[in-house]
């Protein structure tokens, strides 16, 4: 049709309306009304369209049988027959009525039994009583908490520190405070359970890299960089974090922090360092893995540690710059929604810090002892030692697995039982190894990656092992297992008492 000449003029349109046949107009009117009705009618929900009658619904309710709340647990499960400890878990420990040498508690510096620490706790008990009866925001902040935060910040040479009342909750609350849905976290496969829970709570994208393998981490970072270039707008708001542990609980190895810091600046990711095992252990003054490698503390964005290992107290802390730490005072769930640390435990931690600052020599002693034990345990056939030589917590793994996990666990349990029969307290992490599965938080369809290799026996070192550590042992029965045990004991006896 010709365009320029034909123009729709309003008057002509109205005329056309008058001239149209009636049935046409009526039809159009009905169609318009129908469209309006369709537009405004409610969409139906699938549920509401069900055709169940009330009687059928009642029948369904009657028939439904849920699973029992808890499945039955075998009566002889080792966790139901705990080792009951009476008395302090110091160098010598009384387990199930027997006195043993303690290879199982994480009392690295031996401060649990220290009279000064106990005296400080007692003084605090006298002044403040036991509980704080409130979270930090509501009159649960005591001057001892502020003191402890101050002291920790000064000790670690950071701007600020924040205390939590439970070690597990520390890193599990710190990670979700910064990393939210849509952010990316690169975490080591051997990360401990608390970190895994923190990551799960944060709902971020998790990328696992092989344990202590910087090449693998770099590969993942490069892949992420390529992704970023495809979508720069999204990349500008996606935060990146690298979560590592100073000394890994699951393998006893130290993370390669210098390389990590280089990667941090190259790919612009922040580092969260979990130093539960390395605080009070590594470094000349016990400041942890940053001092061990001589790295500037400001390069690490957040250091989190628990006070249950070296500091002989309960609880945990995070330290770093004020810019980072202050955020947790409103966003750390374990900080805001939980009661604060009982003051006597805070006072005990302060005294322990005092002792650490006054005798920096104990760290060297601890490292020496770790090296000695590590050397002594090498060369036992059937068992291999997993962990760094200066790590106070290491694992004894079966060199060759019997093929089934249950059998391995049982074998190790026998070894442990024999140990305790002979006066050494140890534990079998077979059962904990089972629960140690990595989960990737967030969307379904992502497989659970990696199982921490196990089972194994963890063993820990105390700085206080003295000369009178003899290894008494009673009669052994003949069996393949006992030959291994025999060799362990002989090696220790050969080695002689540790000074």
């Amino acid at each position, binding site marked *: 049709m010709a365009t320029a000449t034909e123009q729709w003029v309003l008057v002509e349109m109205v005329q056309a309306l008058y001239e149209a046949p009636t049935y046409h107009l009526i039809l159009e009117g009905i169609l318009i009304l129908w469209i309006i009705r369709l537009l405004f009618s409610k969409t139906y929900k699938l549920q509401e369209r069900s055709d169940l009658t009330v009687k059928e619904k009642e029948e369904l309710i009657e028939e439904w049988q849920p699973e029992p709340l808890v499945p039955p647990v075998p009566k002889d499960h080792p966790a139901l027959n705990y080792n009951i400890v009476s008395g302090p878990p110091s160098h010598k420990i009384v387990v199930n009525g027997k006195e043993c040498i303690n290879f199982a508690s994480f009392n690295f510096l031996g401060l649990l039994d220290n009279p000064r620490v*106990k005296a400080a706790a007692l003084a605090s008990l006298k002044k403040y009583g036991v509980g704080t009866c409130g979270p930090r925001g509501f009159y649960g902040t005591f001057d001892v908490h502020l003191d402890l935060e101050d002291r920790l910040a000064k000790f670690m040479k950071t701007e600020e520190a924040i205390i939590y009342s439970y070690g597990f909750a520390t890193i599990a609350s710190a990670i979700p405070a910064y990393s939210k849905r849509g952010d990316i976290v690169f975490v080591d496969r051997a990360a401990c359970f608390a970190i895994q829970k923190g990551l799960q709570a944060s709902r971020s994208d998790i990328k696992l890299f092989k344990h202590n393998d910087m090449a693998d981490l770099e590969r993942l970072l490069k892949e992420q960089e390529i992704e970023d270039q495809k979508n720069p707008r999204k990349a500008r708001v996606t935060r990146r974090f690298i979560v590592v542990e100073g000394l890994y609980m699951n393998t006893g190895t130290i993370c390669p922090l210098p390389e990590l810091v280089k990667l941090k600046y190259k790919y612009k990711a922040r580092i969260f360092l979990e130093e539960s095992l390395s605080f009070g252990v590594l470094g000349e003054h016990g400041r942890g893995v940053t001092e061990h490698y001589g790295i500037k503390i400001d390069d690490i964005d957040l250091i989190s540690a628990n006070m249950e290992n070296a500091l*002989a107290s309960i609880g945990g802390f995070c330290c770093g710059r004020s*810019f980072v730490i202050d955020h947790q005072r409103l966003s750390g769930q374990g900080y805001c929604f939980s009661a604060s640390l*009982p003051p006597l435990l805070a006072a005990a931690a302060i005294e322990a810090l005092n002792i650490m600052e006054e005798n920096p020599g104990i760290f060297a002693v601890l490292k020496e002892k770790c090296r000695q034990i590590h050397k002594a345990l090498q060369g036992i056939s059937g068992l291999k030692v997993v962990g760094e030589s200066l790590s106070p917590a290491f694992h004894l793994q079966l060199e060759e697995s019997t093929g089934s996990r249950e059998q391995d666990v049982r074998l190790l349990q026998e070894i442990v039982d024999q140990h305790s029969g002979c006066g050494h307290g140890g534990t079998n992490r077979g059962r904990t190894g089972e629960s140690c599965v990595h989960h990737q938080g967030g969307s379904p369809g992502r497989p659970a990656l990696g199982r921490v290799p196990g089972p194994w026996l963890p063993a820990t070192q105390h700085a206080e092992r003295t000369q009178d550590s003899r290894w008494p042992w009673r009669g052994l029965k003949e069996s393949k297992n006992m030959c291994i045990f025999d060799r362990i004991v002989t090696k220790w006896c050969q080695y002689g008492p540790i000074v």
Partner: protein
Amino acid sequence: MANPGGGAVCNGKLHNHKKQSNGSQSRNCTKNGIVKEGQQNGKPHFYDKLIVESFEEAPLHVMVFTYMGYGIGTLFGYLRDFLRNWGIEKCNAAVERKEQKDFVPLYQDFENFYTRNLYMRIRDNWNRPICSAPGPLFDVMERVSDDYNWTFRFTGRVIKDVINMGSYNFLGLAAKYDESMRTIKDVLEAYGTGVASTRHEMGTLDKHKELEDLVAKFLNVEAAMVFGMGFATNSMNIPALVGKGCLILSDELNHASLVLGARLSGATIRIFKHNNTQSLEKLLRDAVIYGQPRTRRAWKKILILVEGVYSMEGSIVHLPQIIALKKKYKAYLYVDEAHSIGAVGPTGRGVTEFFGLDPHEVDVLMGTFTKSFGASGGYIAGRKDLVDYLRVHSHSAVYASSMSPPIAEQIIRSLKLIMGLDGTTQGLQRVQRLAKNTRYFRQRLQEMGFIIYGNENASVVPLLLYMPDLKHAWTKGIRKTKGRVMASL
């Protein structure tokens, strides 16, 4: 202003502010509560009495002023942000390192808007440090701010003998040391402060065993297990009980620890309106009849999460109705008695005793020792097979350290006191005095004209102020009352 003691008439309309629910009129009253030891002397059940809860609405002008206050605060916030960005105003907040300026910002601007501009103005009302035991009177450290709450400085003075209305010290058991706490001193000297191990390894002390037996006896259940932190009790044990394919029905106003535990478990979560049994029933019916969404498979189990006393509303859960529902639809019930254990009920046994119900009807009884017992930590109690399962599978038992010995001893001592095992009736007297004080306090505040939320028997009393600046004026004013200084939120 609200009229005292009765129907509040606001703007000519009677708002439904007093919800009077008669417990005896609900369907389940035919199954009367089993008489427990606490009621053997013939005291009447609270269950039959009227449950009086009030959630009064504020008068209109208050609402208007509140919104205006927040609105003006927000506008000023934008203005100040603008000035700070352009360098006209000095920025007092901490900033990112120079070397990391090109990293993706750690905080989005709008995330911290509220903190920077609104919270900062009244920040001095929170996190007030004290320097004595949190008893009925305590000492507050004086702190001032020279730069409008950005930083604080302690003057060194201590405001002594402040009336404490802010700590959760319901029975007054968190007090300065006295001779009755001798056992705690002994335990501290014998065991030390820490444990340095998990429950599965070397962390189970004989003290824990003693404590668990005592808790089970106190609650009248088969077994109990204790954990080192109340928050962690919820967040680590709910994942052990439910998983994928299960349904969690959680109250609207549940505590952060319950919400976190539910999320970590991986189960589907549905929220029902606060304390509203009709809403819960509808959800239960739909869940049982229609099963899982899309696949229509039946749910593996349904867990209802409620609290005994809600700390922010002061309301008590409608336990008899919920138990009736749970029985009808075969769901499991998890009650978090953090604020109600030791504080509610004729002998302080919690909400089950308050309503005269058998504690065995609740599947999982959880509570904390922080509030009424003056210590820290949490417990889960119930049937023996439940507790055995948690001993084996709870994340806390496997990965987290156990409770510190002197704390365990304090709880043992408190429990013995409340149960009367130490030979005195002091415990019972404290519980009864708490109940009387609560009712008196609430009644007097309402007579004075304040708006109070919650049940008349709940010891947590939320007093609504509405306007943000009023909080500031309130604390200043209340501090100068009659020479005796008071501290509250």
